[in-house]
């Protein structure tokens, strides 16, 4: 990990209350106890001291994170805070949840621990997300109701959506209208699907046809630029790409990091460490080790052959055609899990390369167009002003 900050995705439980068709996670009933959490945090803080890292963000996930009660998180927050304070470290927290178990008793811990913000996921149309024994429509009903309750309580709800075949069929206009106009969700992110875990009927159509998905992304970006940008609507990754191409500070998604191995790790409720939640829930052959079975977290990471593979990935990709790409500085070969789940090896470039290149080009042109419009407007305004002054003199 690097510099003053690093991130951990922490899976507090591997149990889930949903029954989504396309889920690739190997679910168990494991859950983290407060005692084990403290043991884990001591090792993480040791590591932070060795690396002279001052801040940590813990992204809490599952399974379904809300299967542990809010009181557990309150306790976790207090214990982690105490351990961190003793070592002069700062710890921030984020929560990713399906929201199905949200209740107002969560409000205090969401306000305190998670800075009054949560992240959740829903697809449109929802073909695959379900609760056990019920269909997608029931899932939607519960989800919409819970999200409305949270927002009524003043909680900022960020949404991740994964396009599916149905999304491509309905098109970008309906997709945009559904989230922004109908649900009034004005801060969301689109993630590309990948066929994680064992192949099944629900993942056989993934990855989606890249040309169709590319068209969807570009049309959605245009809709956002036309209708949402000036209204403060945020759609990832378009908003951050626009900032990047406008030479503003941007926070691009992890799939485009120079090497995600430098920035993030995942630890599950059993203590297994891997590159991210996608890996720790599905691919034991790529575990880095178990934090409860090591003397030192630093040594676990240093001695892990699996981790060395992640570190070596961009070095391998650069010796092929990625080095020729105009957008190398934005992408670096894309996401290892998307590559691995499609091709069986992480040492290839992301299967969505064509989509990324098209999107980068599109947003680059959009940023240039906006810059030209800004200069033209200022020039026109200045001309009007000069003319007015000339008439007065």
């Amino acid at each position, binding site marked *: 990990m*690097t510099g003053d900050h690093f991130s951990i995705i922490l899976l507090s439980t591997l149990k889930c209350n949903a029954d989504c068709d396309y889920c690739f996670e190997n679910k168990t009933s494991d859950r983290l106890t407060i005692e084990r959490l403290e043991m884990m945090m001591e090792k993480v803080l040791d590591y932070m001291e060795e690396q002279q890292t001052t801040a940590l963000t813990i992204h809490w996930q599952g399974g379904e994170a809300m299967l542990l009660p809010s009181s557990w998180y309150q306790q976790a927050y207090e214990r982690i805070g105490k351990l961190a304070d003793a070592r002069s470290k700062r710890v921030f927290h984020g929560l990713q949840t399906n929201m199905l178990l949200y209740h107002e008793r969560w409000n205090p811990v969401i306000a305190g621990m998670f800075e009054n913000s949560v992240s959740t996921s829903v697809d449109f149309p929802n073909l695959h997300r379900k609760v056990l024994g019920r269909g997608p429509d029931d899932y939607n009903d519960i989800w919409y109701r819970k999200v409305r309750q949270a927002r009524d309580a003043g909680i900022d709800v960020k949404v991740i959506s994964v396009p599916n075949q149905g999304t491509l069929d309905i098109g970008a206009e309906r997709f945009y209208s559904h989230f922004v106009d109908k649900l009034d969700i004005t801060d969301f992110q689109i993630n590309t699907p990948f066929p994680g875990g064992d192949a099944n009927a629900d993942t056989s159509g993934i990855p989606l046809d890249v040309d169709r998905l590319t068209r969807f992304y570009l049309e959605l970006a245009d809709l956002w630029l036309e209708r949402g940008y000036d209204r403060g609507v945020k759609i990832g990754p378009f908003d951050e790409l626009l900032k990047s191409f406008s*030479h503003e500070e941007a926070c691009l998604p992890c799939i485009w990091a120079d090497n995600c191995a430098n920035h993030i790790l995942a630890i599950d409720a059993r203590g297994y460490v891997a590159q991210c939640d996608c890996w720790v829930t599905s691919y034991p052959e790529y575990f880095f080790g178990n934090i409860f079975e090591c003397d030192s977290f630093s040594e676990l990471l240093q001695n892990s052959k699996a981790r060395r593979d992640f570190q070596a990935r961009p070095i391998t990709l650069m010796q092929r055609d990625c080095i020729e790409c105009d957008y190398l500085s934005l992408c670096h070969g894309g996401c290892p899990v998307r590559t691995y789940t499609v091709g069986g090896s992480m040492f290839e470039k992301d299967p969505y390369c064509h989509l990324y290149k098209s999107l980068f080009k599109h947003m680059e042109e959009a940023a*240039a167009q906006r810059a030209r419009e800004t200069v033209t407007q*200022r020039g026109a305004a200045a001309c009007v002003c000069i003319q007015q002054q000339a008439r007065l003199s």
Partner: protein
Amino acid sequence: MNEVVYNIPACRIGAYQGHPLIARSSDPSEWIRCLSDDTLDHVVYLQLLSISADLDPLMHWGEGVPLELVVQDPTAEFPLLYDCTNLLDRHPVRVSIPLTPGFGQAVKLAVSLQFGVQLRVTQPDSLPVDELRNILHFYLHHSTASQPIDFFHSLFFAFHDEEPMTLWEIQEEDPACFRFVDDQGREHLPGRLARMDFAGDKALFIEEFKKVVRAPESECSDCAFFQNCAGYFKWPNPHYRCDGIKSLLRMLRDAASELRSDLERYDKQNAGD
């Protein structure tokens, strides 16, 4: 720059206390052994001669001290730049790249990883000039090129600001400002001039050299870029033809002029606000 900067092996720091220094080594742990906090105050930058060295010591020492990573073989070494990105959290870093096969890829990757670049230039023949032209186009026009590539960057601003800064200064090869101390402790002229035995006043070397290369009927005598080039590309072979290089300098000068005009026009428009 008033004081001479000495490029020295890290182990010879004792003899150059109080002088501005470039301390070079192939092993970062040598810097930790040889350089005290007081000495670090005088270090202009640390020059690492091998990018496959163990960089871990630099993650916990000398925070903020600039680093230069010297690439020796661009084709073989350029992917290893990925192992160096963590340094950017603690140090400003630039990568020094020679104009040998594969240098274009190394430059592109270095910039993509947010490293600054210094090109180690000699007298390039046509193939490197073509590659330099591609890199210059990338530097000037590509929206994702957000790091300086010298000599392009400094020369661009010298053209823009109409400053007489020379390539000798930009490339740290002006003996008036830089000296090279070899591993045996002997002092030489800097960079490409190091192999030369020169008994005269080192501070006047460039002025004397300019007189020689600007002899009547010489290519330099009517060169539009002489003020900033100062005969840089006439070393070591004074008969080197600069046609390819001049095309690059023309691109830089024209781009600098265009920027200057655009900014002047923008300022005039805003004066009406």
